[in-house]
C-alpha cells in the first residue's frame, strides 16, 4: 500500500461533563489511502460523526481530544495547526459534506456567489475566473452551467446536494468527508449522486471518508470499511471481507438486521 493520505492514530475523544466524562471515541486508528473510499459504519451514538468533525477540526467544547491522539494528513498533524493554517487546510485539503448538506446553501445568495465566496477565500481569483470554475464544477455534477444565477430554492433536494458536492470539489481537495450525505434523499437520487462521486474520484483522484448506517450501500461504494460500536472501531477490512466474511459478532448482527429485497435478511 502507498503512504496513507489520512492517518488517524489512537484517536480518543471525550465529551466533558460536570460529574463524569463520556468517551465518544475510544482509541480509534485507521488509514485512508489516496483515492480510496473508506467507510465508517455504525449506529447513532457510536462516535462516527465525532470522528468526522475532529478530522476537519470542527469539534467544539465539551468535546476534548485526548493528548495521545493524532490525525495526520500527508504526515502533518491536523490537531497542531494554528488558525491560519487551519483556514488553508479546510476546503483545500479536506472538504466536508454534512448530512443535510442540501440545506447548507445560503437561501438568499445565487449559486454563483456561493462558489465565489469559497474560491476567493482560498485563492486569488477574479470574478470571471470564478465563473468559469463554477461552470466547470456544475457540469461535473450534471447541472447546466446556465443555472448558476439561480437561487437554491429553484433546485430539487438532489440537485442542491450535488451543488454542495461541486462546491466541495472546487478547490481540488484531497479528501472529502461525507457524513450521511444522502440519508435525506430518495434511493434513486442517492444512487445517482454516489455513482457520480465514484466516477469523479476515479477521474480526479480524491479520497472519501464515507459515513453511513446503511451497510449495503457502504459495500457498494467503499473500498474498505470500519465498523464502530460504542466509540471503538471493532472491525475493519475490505468491503468484500466485511460483507462475505465478517468476523466481529456486532458486524454479523448488523447484517442480520437488513431485510433483503429478495426475501429474508441479507445474511
Amino acid at each position, binding site marked *: 500500500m502507498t503512504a496513507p493520505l489520512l492517518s488517524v492514530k489512537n484517536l480518543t475523544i471525550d465529551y466533558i461533563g460536570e460529574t463524569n466524562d463520556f468517551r465518544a471515541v475510544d482509541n480509534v486508528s485507521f488509514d485512508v489511502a489516496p483515492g480510496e473510499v473508506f467507510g465508517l459504519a455504525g*449506529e*447513532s451514538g457510536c462516535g462516527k460523526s465525532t470522528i468526522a468533525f475532529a478530522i476537519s477540526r470542527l469539534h467544539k467544547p465539551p468535546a476534548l481530544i485526548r493528548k495521545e491522539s493524532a490525525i495526520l494528513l500527508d504526515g502533518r498533524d491536523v490537531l497542531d495547526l494554528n488558525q491560519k493554517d487551519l483556514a488553508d487546510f479546510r476546503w483545500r485539503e479536506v472538504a466536508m459534506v454534512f448530512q443535510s448538506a442540501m440545506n447548507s446553501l445560503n437561501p438568499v445568495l445565487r449559486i454563483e456567489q456561493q462558489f465565489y465566496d469559497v474560491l476567493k477565500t482560498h485563492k486569488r481569483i477574479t470574478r470571471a475566473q470564478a465563473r468559469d470554475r463554477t461552470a466547470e464544477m456544475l457540469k461535473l455534477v*450534471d447541472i447546466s452551467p446556465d443555472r448558476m444565477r439561480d437561487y437554491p430554492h429553484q433546485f430539487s433536494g438532489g440537485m442542491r446536494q450535488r451543488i454542495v458536492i461541486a462546491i466541495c470539489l472546487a478547490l481540488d481537495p484531497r479528501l472529502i468527508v461525507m457524513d450521511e450525505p444522502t440519508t435525506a434523499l*430518495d*434511493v*434513486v*437520487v*442517492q*444512487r*445517482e449522486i*454516489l*455513482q*457520480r462521486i*465514484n466516477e469523479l474520484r476515479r477521474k480526479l483522484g480524491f479520497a472519501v471518508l464515507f459515513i453511513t*448506517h*446503511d*451497510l*449495503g*450501500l457502504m*459495500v*457498494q*461504494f467503499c473500498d474498505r470499511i470500519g465498523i464502530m460500536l460504542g466509540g471503538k472501531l471493532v472491525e475493519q477490512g475490505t*468491503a468484500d471481507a466485511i*460483507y462475505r466474511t465478517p468476523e466481529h459478532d456486532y458486524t454479523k*448482527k*448488523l447484517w*442480520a*438486521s*437488513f*431485510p*433483503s*429485497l*429478495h*426475501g429474508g*435478511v*441479507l445474511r
Partner: protein
Amino acid sequence: MTGMSAPILTLDKVSKTFGNGPAAVRAARSISFSLHAGRALAVVGESGSGKTTCARIAMREYEPSEGRLLYKGKPVDAAGSKEIADYRRSVQMIFQDPFASLNPAHTIAYHLKRPLMLHRSDIRGAAVDEEIKALLRQVKLDPEIVAPKYPHELSGGQRQRVNIARALAAKPEVIVADEPTSMLDVSVRLGVLNLLSEMKREMNLGLLYITHDIATARYVAEDIAVMYAGQIVEWGNTGKVIDNPAHPYTKLLLSAVPDPDIRFDDPNAQVSSAEADETRRRSAATQETIREVEPDHFVRAA
C-alpha cells in the same frame, strides 16, 4: 388481492387535490386499494409520491376531493356520529417520529390509559392498570419498569413499541403505520417490524405499511402498491411485483436499492440519470389503462 375475506377498509378511486387553479397539486390520483384482516399492504414510493396522503385519507385526516372511503362496505362520509366514533377506534395510527408522537409531560401509563378510557368502556377501575400491563407485555416491554417512566427516559425503539401498544389499546381492526422505523437505528428496526407482523397475525389486523424502503416492504407485507406522482403505478402480490416488475418506475426504484452484491464500479449496474429523468417524466402522466401482468399483479400503462 383476490380470494380473501371482505375488506375492512377500502379506498375507492380516491383523489386529493391541494390548492386550486394551475398551482393545484394532485397529491393522490384515483387511488384504489383494500385492507383485509390479517394482511399487510405496503405502499412504497419516494418523498412526494403521495403515500402519506393515502395514509391520512385512510385516517380521515383529509377529506378526499373525489372518490369514496368505505368501512366494511359502507361509505364513511354518510355514517352517523356513532359509526364515526367506531371508525376512529377501529383505525389506529403509528407515526414516523417516536420522539414527537408521545407527550413529554405524561407517563407511559397515562398514554395507554387515554385510549382505554375513550374507547374501552368495558374496562374500568383496577382492570385498567391490568390492561396497561398486558399491553406493555404484548409489545415486549417490562410494565414494572416502563409504565411509570416518561417518554424521554426511553429509547427510540422502546417509544415506538409504546406507540404500538397505544394503537392496540383501542382494539383496532386496522393499523396505519407511516414509516414506523425510518427514524430508528438499524439494529432495532427489524424488532419493531417483527412486532408489527406478529400483532397482525395474532390479532388478525389489517396493516397499511407506508415506507420508502422496498426491502422492508417485502419483509412485512403480502401485498404492495408502488406510488409515483400521486398514482399507484404497479400493485399486487409483493413477491411478484418485486421479482417481475413491469412498470419503468418500479424497475428504476428496484435498480437503485442498495445491494451489497453489486459494486458501483460494475458498468452493468449503472443507473443513468438521463434515463431516470425520462422514466420520471413518463410515470408522472395520468394513465387510465391498466394491464394484468399475471394473476394478482397489475400495472398502469406508461
